[in-house]
Structures are given as C-alpha cells and as structure tokens.
C-alpha cells in the first residue's frame, strides 16, 4: 500500500516502521501485558483490604483513620446491614455534593481569575453530579471556568470521594458474599480505608512518576508565550497538573486539568506518561478482579473474569485500532501513502497508543482521552463505544466488581438451569431475589440511555440545533453522550454544545440514575448473600471458573449489549460506516 518504504540498517527497525499494523498490534499487546502485570501485582494487597487482613501500610494509616473516626464520631465496630450501609453512603454523598455545589456557585464570585466566567447553576449541578459519581463528564474547559480553589477543593476532593465510595461499595459487596452474619459493614470506615490504604498512596506514586516524566506540578500560574510569528500571546495556565492527574487516573475519574484532557502535552507529554496513565487507571479495576477471586478463595473464578474482560478489551482495542489505521476508505483510496486516521490524534502518541488509551478509558469508568474522539472513524468509535454500552465491564474503582457480578449472576442462572441445577454461586444459593435485582441493575443501564435518546431525537429540531455533523454521526454522538453518562464514564465525544441547561440537567439525571440505584440494587444482592450460609461441597461440581462458563459470560454480555442497542447502532455508527464504504465503492467523492 505505502509508496515510500523507510529503510535503515537494522532489519527489525525497518520491519516495524514499514509494517505499522504489526507494530501497532504488538504495542497494544504490550500495553495489555503490562497493565495485567501491575493489576496482578497489586491483587494480593487489594485482597487483604477486602478480607480485612493487616497490610504493611496499616501501621501508618490506622492512627489517621482512627483519629478521623474519633473526630467524626464513627464507631468502626458498629456494622450495618444493607439499609444502614446504603443510607450512610447516600447521605455522605449527598452532603458532599450539596456542600461542593454551593461552594462552586459562590466561590466563583470571590476567587475568579481574570478571564474566567461564573458557572451557571445547571452547569454546576452537572459538574458536581458528574464528579461525585466518578463520571467526570466535563461540559466546560476547566481553566476557563474553575477557580483554582474550586479545582483543588471541589474537583480533587470529589475525585477522592467518588473513588472511595465506589471501592467501599465493593468492600461491602465482597463481605456480603464472604460472610453470613447478615451485615455489610460500616460505610465510613470502609470509605476511609479505601482512601488511605489504597487510593491515596497509589495516587501519590502516580503523581511522582508523572512529575518525573515531565508533567508540571506547580502552584497556580500562567505561562505566557510570545510566539515568534503572530502578535497574539498564548496564555497557558498551569497548576497542580500532576497531582490532579494522579487521582484522575488512579480513581478512574478521568476529568482532566485541560479541556483536551490527556491529549494536551502538559497532561500527557510522551509515551512513558501515556503508559503510566493507562496502567494507573486500570490497576485498581484489574487488581480488584484478581483480588475478588483470591478473597473468595476461588482464584480460577478471578482468572475467568479476567479472561472475559481481556477478551472484551482486546476486541475493543483492536476494533478501534483497525478502524483508525484503515482510516477513511475514501482517503485510503486516493493512492498516496495513507497511514491511517491521524485527525485529532497526538502524533507523538500515535494510533495504537491512542486506541488502547481510548478503549481502556471506556472499559474502565475513567473516560479520559488522549485524542479527539469526534474525529474517529465510525468503526473506531464503535470500538470505543461498545464498552460504554456494556456499562464499563472493567468498571471504576470498586464498581467494576459489582457490575461484572450482576452479569455473572445472570449467566449463572441460565447455565445452572441448562445443567439441571438450581442456580448457585460460590456455594451460595441464588434465589429469585438476586435474579430480580441483577435484572433490575442490568436493564436500568439501557433504559436510561435509550429513553433520553428517544426523547431528544423526538424533540430534535430544538435540542439538536448545535449538532454539526451528518445525521448518522449525530445519533452516534448522542448515544455516546448518554452512554457515557449512564455508565458513569465521562468520556466525551462532543460534536455539539453540551453546556446547555437541557443537556446539563438531563446528563445529571442520567448520571445519578446510573450510579446510586445500580449500587443500591447490587448491595441488595450482597445483603441477600450475607444472610446465606455456604453449602459444603462434596466432590466436583459445576465450575464457575471454567472456560465454558467464561465463554457463556462473554456472549451473554455481548448479547445483552447488542440486543439493547442494535437498532440505534444501525442508524448511527453502522450507517456511517456503511456510508464511508459507499464512498469507496462509488469511486471516491473527493
């Protein structure tokens, strides 16, 4: 295909430079291997947090946690069942949200920097909800509206709170399965443990590493550049970028310092920082999956889930990569050396590393981006979009374990019946209650995407006036926006003015529905398991960690996603894809 062949003395250099598909696939494989390795490395540590064993950090963090608990009047030995646990979680989140909401609205009047505008209440609502729920959908470019106090207190604060809340929920969930004392635990204690034992230390490490590779971390100031050509000066704000970057990725938050997120050189200067970021937003989700298997004394189960997730990861990353490297058929058809769709990508990072970043960011609930998704090809965007439609299979900090488990329960139900057993998981009977709540949790996700999408499309002339692309792309963008909100991902495709009262509030509601009811359903399941005693197994039984179970789980996930969204995908990305081929077949429109 390529008309110019690069040659150098080294055979392999020549080979990799000239065979960019091969080298891209190898880079993706290396990324997957490295992030799996780090996930596996941290798993025993997360397992200890799940099971409440002593960790090396405990010595240092326990006094801090104890002091905070004493000040807040929390008795860690007082454990709660679902109701108490979930109410604590809701109240804590509500208070944090309310306080930061007013802070955001009123602080804007006092600490505003020159050139900054005040947030509208709807944008403030959207921002708070979005950061509170680990979504980090940003309907603004942060330096232009957020004061530095906002950024330090509200944004970074909520990033910790949302990650801590998610991880606490997963601690309660694992405890529900492991124990049979009818209790889920103490939310505040779990939350503090999640923050001090896991999230904070890892964020610090990530921050230090990012500083080393060149991400700025300073008190607030502006770099003013006077370009050689042109009369305008360029004013680049800098601040505690690396600090934010650390918790942004470790907490699977994804909201960046700059509007362009990790596509901006100050957030993600080179391939090493790119790798550090991908590893840091996958380390806790992948570690939690292995840790789940270890905590439940069923490593094989953990491996099976890891396998299924990896299959989805590979599928998503390769779909994106091949979509992008093939680029726009019309362009490729022109005959010159077309290296793939580089529009909207940082050339220093390239297609393969952009693809793995984008698919990793939607597979986890990070939603960070190092390239402009709006410029992706229809096939490429499908690869990034489909994990959102499956509600982020790898999930956020903690929530990944919860989400995958609802799919597992659904699959266990089908599989058990097929082998003539009543469903059971980890030697615990799965009763109709668990099936009911996992069904609720699984159908909530498509419903809160499709219904708003239908409403918006129905009222399209008014609401969709700001859309600029062609119609199939508009549908893709709308689907992407709502899917990202519903799965608490926060990845932005853009393509229209998101900062309008309607989208701010609509997204906010979808985000809330995608977060709290689903965590609620999942904790009800945990509570139900917490009242059950495990069966003493005799001989070999139906193996939940087997290949066949994994295969069925994989197809169940794909099937549920496909069945729920196929018509919308058809008139959105699939139609756009088809059209791009039609151009090719039609002999080229350009």
């Amino acid at each position, binding site marked *: 295909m390529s008309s110019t062949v690069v040659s150098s003395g080294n055979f392999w250099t020549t080979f990799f430079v000239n065979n960019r598909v091969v080298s891209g696939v190898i880079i993706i494989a290396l990324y997957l291997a490295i992030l799996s390795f780090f996930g596996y490395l941290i798993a025993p540590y997360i397992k200890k947090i799940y099971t409440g064993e002593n960790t090396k950090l405990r010595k240092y963090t326990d006094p801090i946690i104890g002091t905070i608990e004493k000040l807040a009047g929390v008795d860690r030995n007082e454990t709660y069942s679902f109701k108490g646990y979930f109410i604590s979680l809701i109240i804590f989140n509500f208070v944090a949200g309310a306080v930061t909401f007013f802070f955001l609205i009123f602080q804007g009047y006092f600490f505003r920097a020159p050139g900054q505008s005040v947030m509208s209440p709807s944008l403030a609502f959207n921002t708070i909800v979005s950061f509170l729920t680990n979504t980090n959908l940003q309907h603004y470019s942060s330096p232009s509206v957020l004061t530095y106090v906002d950024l330090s207190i509200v944004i970074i604060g909520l990033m910790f709170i949302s990650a801590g809340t998610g991880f606490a929920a997963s601690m309660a969930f694992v405890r529900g399965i492991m124990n049979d004392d009818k209790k889920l635990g103490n939310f505040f204690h779990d939350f503090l443990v999640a923050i001090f034992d896991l999230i904070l230390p890892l964020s610090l490490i990530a921050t230090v590493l990012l500083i080393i590779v060149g991400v700025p971390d300073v008190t607030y100031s502006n770099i003013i550049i006077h370009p050689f050509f042109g009369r305008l000066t360029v004013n680049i704000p800098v601040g505690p970028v690396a600090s934010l970057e650390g918790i942004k990725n470790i907490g699977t938050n994804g909201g960046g310092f700059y509007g362009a997120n990790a596509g901006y050189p100050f957030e993600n200067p080179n391939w090493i920082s790119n790798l550090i970021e991908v590893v840091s937003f996958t380390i806790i989700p992948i570690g939690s999956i292995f840790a789940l298997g270890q905590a439940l004394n069923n490593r094989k189960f953990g491996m099976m889930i890891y396998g299924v997730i990896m299959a989805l990861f590979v599928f998503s990353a390769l779909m994106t990569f091949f979509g992008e490297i093939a680029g726009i058929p019309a362009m490729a058809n022109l005959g010159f050396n077309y290296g793939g769709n580089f529009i909207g990508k940082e050339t220093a990072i390239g297609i393969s590393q952009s693809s793995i970043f984008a698919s990793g960011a939607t597979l986890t609930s990070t939603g960070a981006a190092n390239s402009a998704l709006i410029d992706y090809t229809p096939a490429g965007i499908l690869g990034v979009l489909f994990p959102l439609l499956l509600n982020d299979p790898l999930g956020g900090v903690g929530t990944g374990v919860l989400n995958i488990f609802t799919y597992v329960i*659904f699959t266990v*139900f*089908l599989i*058990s*019946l*097929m*082998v*003539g*057993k*009543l469903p059971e998981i980890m030697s615990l*009977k799965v*009763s*109709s209650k668990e*099936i*009911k709540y996992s*069904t*609720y949790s*699984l*159908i909530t996700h*498509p*419903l809160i995407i*499709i*219904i708003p999408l*239908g409403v918006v*499309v*129905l009222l*399209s002339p008014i609401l969709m006036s700001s859309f600029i692309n062609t*119609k199939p792309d508009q*549908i893709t963008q709308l689907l992407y926006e709502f899917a990202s909100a519903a799965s608490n991902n926060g990845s932005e495709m853009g393509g229209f003015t998101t900062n309008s009262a309607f989208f701010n509030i609509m997204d906010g509601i979808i985000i809330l529905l995608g977060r709290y009811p689903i965590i609620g359903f999942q904790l009800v399941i945990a509570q139900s398991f917490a009242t*059950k*005693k495990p*069966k*003493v197994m*005799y*001989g*070999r*039984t*139906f*193996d939940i960690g*087997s290949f*066949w*179970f994994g295969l*069925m789980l994989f*197809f169940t996930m794909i*099937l549920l996603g*496909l*069945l*729920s969204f*196929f*018509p*919308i995908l*058809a*008139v959105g990305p*699939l*139609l756009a*894809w*088809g*059209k791009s*081929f*039609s151009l090719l077949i039609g002999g080229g429109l350009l």
Partner: protein
Amino acid sequence: MNKYVEAIINALKEFDPRKLYRNPVMFITEIALLLSIYLLVFHSEYDLSLSGLYIPFYISVLVLLFLTIFFSTLAESLAEGKSRDITASLRKMKKETTGRLIVDKEEKIVDSSTLRKGMIVEVRKNEMVPTDGEIAEGSGYFNESSITGESKAVFKVTGDSVTGGTVFLDDSIKVRITANPGETFLDKMIEMVEGSVRKKTPNELALSVLLSGLTLIFIVVTSSILPLGSFMKFDVNLILLVVLLITLIPTTIGALLPALGIAAINKVSQFNVIAKSGRAVENAGDIDTIILDKTGTITMGERDASKLYPNKGVSDEVMASVAYQSSYMDETREGISLIKYVKNLFPDIEKYKIKDASFIPFSSETKFSGIAYDDHKIYKGSPHAIWDLMGEKDGFIDAVCAEISSRGGTAMVLVEDSHVIGAIEFNDIIKPWIGERIKTMKTMNIKTVMCTGDNELTAAYISREAGLDEFVANSKPQDKYLKVESEKNQQRMVAMVGDGTNDAPALALADVGLAMNSGTQAAKDAANMIDLDNDPTKLMDVIFLGKQILITRGSLTTFSIANDISKYFVIIPAIFYIFPALSFINILGFTDPLLAITSALIFNTIIIPLLIPMAIRGVRFKPSTVDQLLKRNIMVYGFGGVVLPFIAIGLIYHLLLGVGILW
C-alpha cells in the same frame, strides 16, 4: 379427538386478558395484536400504506400474532388436559360407599360421607374401606389395586393406615376414621394436582422477572425506532415495529413456560408419584444428598441362608441335619430359606425330623429360636444371644461370624445343648441394578448415604458393594433425622424416603421427602411426594426428572434469547432498507424487506408448536457430569439457537419466494 377439541376451546378461553396477564410475554403479544388491529382500523391517521402489497402482509401479521398466542395457550391447555386426566382417574378411585358405624357396640349402616374423624367402623370380608383411617383392631390382607394398580394383596396390622376405596380380604376388622369428608388422601391428592398447576415455583418466578426485564428493554428499544425514523426523515410503518417487538421478546420460552410447569407435575404423576407442589419437583433436580434405607432400597430386604460353616469336628451332614431340626417348625423367612437350602444339599434331609418336639419361637428379647425334645434343646440365633445363653464364646465360630458380618452377611450360631455345631450365613441380596443407579447419582455429583440398623461391618460391606459414599450403621429412627439435619446445616439439599411415623420429622425436614403410600398417615402428611407404588428406588427417578425439567427450562430460555440475534439481522436491515449504505448488515441478502420480515415472524410462530412436544416430554439428557452437559447444551441451544433461525428464516424466505409470493 374430543380431547383435542376441548383443548382448543380451552386454549381460546385463555385469550382472556385477565388470565393471560400472568404470562407477561404473551400478554404483550396480545396487546400487540389488539394494537395492530387498532392501527389498521385507523390506518389513515397513522400513515399506514394500504397499497396492494401491504394488504396480504398485514393479514399474515395478524394471523401469525394470533397463532403465537394460540400456540402458547394450546400448549398450556394440552398439558392441563393431561393433568385433568390424572385428577379424573384419581376421582374415579373415590367411590361413595357405605360403612358399618359402631356406636355403643351396635352396628349402623351409614353413608360414607357422614363419617367423621374418630368414629369406628367395621369392615368385613370383600367390603370396601369407606374412607381413610387406621386399623383399630385386627389385621388382614387388603387389595389396594384401586390406588396402586398392584393387585398383590397387602398385609396390614393394628395401627397401619388404610385408604378409602381399598378392599378388605379377610374376615373382619375395625377401623378408626382419621379424615373428615373432603380431607381424605384422595381429596388432598386431587387438590394438590390441581393446585400445583397454578402456582409458580420460585425459580419460575425468577425466570419470569428476567423475561419481563428483557421484554421491557425490547419495548423501549422498538419504540426508540419511531423517533429515530422521524429524525432520519423516513416513515416507519408501525406494523413493522409491532413485528420487530414480537420477534424480539422471548416468545418461545414465554409461550412454553406455563406448559413446562404443568408438564413437570404430569411427568411425576406418570411415575405414579404424586407431588404436592411444583417446588418439590424442582428441588428434586437440585438434590445434593440422597438418604437411602438399606432394606428394600439397596437390598431386596429378604435374608436367605447361603452357606453353612460347621465347627471343628462336625461333619457337613451333621451340621445340615441339626440346622434342619432347628428350623422345620420355624415359619420366619430365615427358617424357610434355611430349610430350602439344606434340602438342596441333602434331598433326604427330612429323615431327621423329630417327632413330639416343641417349638421355641423367636422373640425380639431373646433373639433366638429353636426346638426342645426330651431333654435336648437346639437353638439358632444371633452370636451375641447364643454366647449370652451359653455363658461362653466359641473362639473359632465367633471368628467365622465376624468374617460373615464383614462380608455384609448375617451370621447365626447353631447349638445343640452345649455343643456349638456351627454358623449359618444369611445374605440379604443387593439389588443387581442398584450399583448402576448409584453410579448415575455420583456422576450427577449427588452424595449417597445409606441408613441401616445393621452393624458397622455389614453396613460397610454393603455400602462398598453398592458404591455408596457414606453409611450410618446401627441407625435408630432419630438417626435419619439427625443425618438430614446435619446435611441441611451444610446447606445441602436432601432427599429421602420414609414410611413410618418415626420418619415423619425427617421427611418434613428434607427438601424432597418421598413417602410410601403404604406408610402411615403421619409420614404421608410430612412428605412432599407420595409414591403410590411403594417403590423406594423411585426417589432416583424423581431426581432425574427434576433435573430434566430444569434443563428443559434453561435450554429453551437460552435458545429463545439466542434466536434474537438472527431475527435482528433479518428485520433491522428490512426496516432500514431505504439506506442502501446499511446493506452490509443484511447478511442473508434478502431483497424483499416485507417478505423477510414475514419469514422471521413465521419462524417465530411455528417454532412454538414445534417445541411443544419437547416441552411436554422434556429435553433428552444423558446423566453426565455438569461440565459435559454444559458444553453440550451451550453448543446445541446457545450456538444452535443463533445459527438455526438464520437457516430456517432463509429457507422460509426462499420457499415463499419460490411459490411466487412477492410483496
């Protein structure tokens, strides 16, 4: 023929929305049917094209929607018809008769319907027992063929329960009535068979929730096409959306689910087992531990003499002759079999018969029997009893006895006065086919436990021979309860068989308690299944059946959901056919969108009657390990469920095209 007409009429009656709402999937289908009729009546308001090619399409959609519901209700009414046959045959057993009521020692002939609990009636030769009761006085043979179909007479003694409708064959007996009219065994059975049909089991409920959830998603997904269509500036024919909805919602499993539930109860009934609830049958499929009695279940329950072991210095003939003398007056099973055995060895053994000897019968206290003549005494009995009697042990014979025990036999020691003549081995024969069945249970990962009153050695031997996992030796009645309890404490599902009153607590505790019809009333009340044929091994059949029912349900659900993929790939390209760019998802290459949609709906409809026989009969399955079963069923119903509709819809499409239908 009449039966089928009745089934069809009942199926049509089930269209009543008040009845149909219990089945959400079919209820939605009915609403879709009514909606389509409404849309067609007011077609001008909804921009439905009435051009020539659309008319036959609309008609076929209406007909197919109607048939979808009809096939579902037909499946249910066919299954119900079967269960009605069962209740009818139960009702036939219930005959109104008269009874001899005893009041103040006087006899009064009254109608059986006037008899109440606690009354005493007399039953004479060849009379029918008027209603359920227990024998208050006397004993004798009963013909229970009206209940069990078994014509062999059954011997019952005071305290045993008798069922109304059975015939007494001996002189006279007094029966205390234990059931008021309407509460008899048969009444309860009829009520159960009818009632269990109507109640959903927890697992069915869970499946209903899951199917309803999917249905809800599909309603929303289908509705979303409407705004998408107007956005993309093309008219969506509402009837097409109705068809899409009906093909997507899990109509296959939704249509067959009620029939599956009824078929479960029916299948159990065909085994002559009455299940008190659908839940009991479902539990049977999930049993982890099965507790079996030794006697009657694993062994024939009859001890036969199988070998003689003469003491040192005693010849075979002497041994045989003393054995003969000890037993020719003994009418117990052991005695008769011993006589038969020695006659086989020495045909002229009868010459040793002693005249004027008196018989010392066996009693449960002494545990020996024998004869006394002149001043000689011959005893045979359990080693323990004999050594106690003699005051000392014979070392050699005692060792022989221990060895017999270790082989699962029962040893008896024969003594004449103070000489120990030898030992006799009795064997309870293990049913020849039981090993096979135990192995089947094991492949299905079910733990088998045997309860026996035998000693440790015998129990160990039998359990090894039959391939059992565990045994409880020297078991007393409460041991069975304790075993059930300990298994339940390990959260395992337990099945057991029982017939005596002292089994009742264990039967009640077990997840599946199968009582013998010949058992006491208390046992039958406590159990959740009753076997009319009194065959304890049937427990294993019931477990097999329970599994089959679950597998059928699971496989059809998987199949039904997997079908959706191909239906999507047929209907979505057809609905969006105005976008040529989307033709790459039209993987079957259909050129006529309306015909393609019709073909998908035809497949969706006819798959239901095609699967009715499977739903009623159950999925065939070989007892194998769960892994093998899983592999097979995922391949057949999962991947088969994806591929089959593609082929079938393609065939239907080209068939219709071939006969010249072109819309």
